[in-house]
């Protein structure tokens, strides 16, 4: 009910900046080079509130490419980045059930 973008920013642990692409709404992540990617694996990972704020400020200024930028938690493993909560898992993997068109075959 409160979108993450409207919540007070306090970041503990690792996080990425995510948004939706303006043209088609696709889920995108901010890269270290200041671009956007649809692959979480290519996202810039930051730790702590200050670093997250800085990356967010730059990403939010780029709203003609991607809109609604916010900080999303991630879990960083040895060889991969995983979304840090259910909402972000759903944004990566899609709805948690088969879409109707697939059921109907």
């Amino acid at each position, binding site marked *: 009910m409160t979108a993450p973008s409207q919540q007070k920013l306090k970041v503990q642990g690792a996080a990425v900046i995510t948004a*939706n692409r303006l043209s088609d709404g696709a889920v995108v992540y901010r890269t270290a080079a200041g671009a956007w990617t649809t692959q979480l694996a290519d996202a810039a990972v930051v730790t702590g509130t200050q670093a997250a704020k800085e990356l967010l400020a730059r990403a939010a200024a780029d709203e003609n490419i991607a809109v609604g930028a916010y900080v999303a938690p991630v879990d960083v493993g040895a060889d991969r980045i995983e979304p840090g909560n259910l909402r972000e898992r759903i944004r990566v993997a899609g709805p948690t*059930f088969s*879409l109707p068109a697939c059921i109907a075959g």
Partner: protein
Amino acid sequence: MYIYDDFDLTLVAERVAEFRDQVARRLSGELNEEEFKPLRLMNGVYLQLHAYMLRVAIPYGTLSSKQLRALAHIGRRYDRNYGHFTTRQNIQFNWIKLSDLPDVMADLAEAGLHGMQTSGNCVRNVTTDQWAGVAPDEIEDPRVWAEILRQHSTLHPEFSYLPRKFKIALTAAATDRAAVRVHDIGLRLHKNGTGETGFEVMVGGGLGRTPFIGKTIKPFLPKRDFLSYIEAILRVYNQYGRRDNIYKARIKILVHELGAEKFAAEVEAEWRNIKDGALALDPAFVADIAARFRYPDYKALSDNPIELKRARAADPKFEGWFRNSVTPHRTPGYAIVTLSLKPEGAPPGDATSEQMDAIADLADRYSFGEIRVGHEQNLALPHVAQRNLPALWEALDAVGVATPNVNLVSDIIACPGLDYCSLANARAIPVAQELSRRFKSLDTQREIGRLHINISGCINACGHHHIGHIGILGVEKNGQEFYQITLGGRADENAELGALLGPAVPYAEVAEAIEDVVAAYVELRERPNELFVDTVKRVGIEPFKERVYATR
């Protein structure tokens, strides 16, 4: 159905052109997101978790077969081959690209469809009884009044930037199938002591974070004053509704803070200034709108034809569906057929493009080309000759919309929840799917009887959980999904808000908790046809609480 003329088509086409320009200005960066957002919302375009979502209005829930095919086409061409029917007589497409949206709108406009005012702080799609015009218990067709309101509120120069969204519903029947008491304005057509037909006006109902049942501020409003009185309500709200806090901006808060009497007095004072002006309804105008509704050329048929009798006697499956999904029509020899969009294990209210096309074909063949959409997220064919019911049933069964669970425990109303919605805290659809699997036995469902489960994935209550017999509200606690359960709500003419059962239960336990509630009801009810809500009223929620929390 309402027949668009060149005025209506011109306006919709001009709206598409305007939106095309707005999208182009946004994509070029001329408009920033803050400026563009209210513009896209006024056209029903949201940005959700995975993509843009488009909400298309289905005014008063009436669709022509041509319109349903247009919706199927949108799903196929621009989305992922399906659409989701909502609790407010709209359909949503979940995977639309912003860059495609002007073309989507143009395709819809050709069929007289649009997304105007399906979002934003304006008067939303005006809803009514999905059986309007065919229900035996209505005093007149409420869609005429819904259409008058639709026209009046469309691109209204004064009320397009209200403090918050504004929902109006109408009913003209003894049984309220439009949930008018939980709308910002609810209107009930009825006759007064002298036999004149007019409106009971209720205001300040609504669900969401602060649910209220609407209060009657005008027991009888003559038809002539229909528009001027609603204009007065909107004007008072536009000026005095709160704009400092989004959670307190709905008219229900204004009505609550002022008190219904004081609010009514404000409306009366404003109304006196305008009641004899341009909005006083000329009977010729009402007649003109009414004449735009076409009714089928029914044949002279009698009830219970031999074809129906034979099929009922011969096939218990048909008989089960007939008893569940077929409702009396006001014309002899005809019936209203509800099409369940709640098959076992499916997301409630979803229909594939193939299903929509097939239903459009069946509507042409068996229902004078007309389809209805109800707030329960099911469809209906409103004008089916009873002798055609056996053939129709087979055809509906073949496309998966003949599950005979209408109004039963698996006919669950659910919002899209966290699987799609950026506002949600918890999932709703998987909970509905799991419940529909647990209650899949039709015998069990019939034994339980009429029971409405409503699920919302957040406090905004799009799944209308407060007015479900059993309401389920998803909340988030420490990153986990939990669900509050409410009992005893109802949406009809005796509308009530459910009472909280107890502490929220985790996702993994919610289906079992609901099974416990239902089992307790079956044991506690006085007789098999005592409604769940009546049992709750009689025994209170304590026995249910004991049952659910004894083992938790």
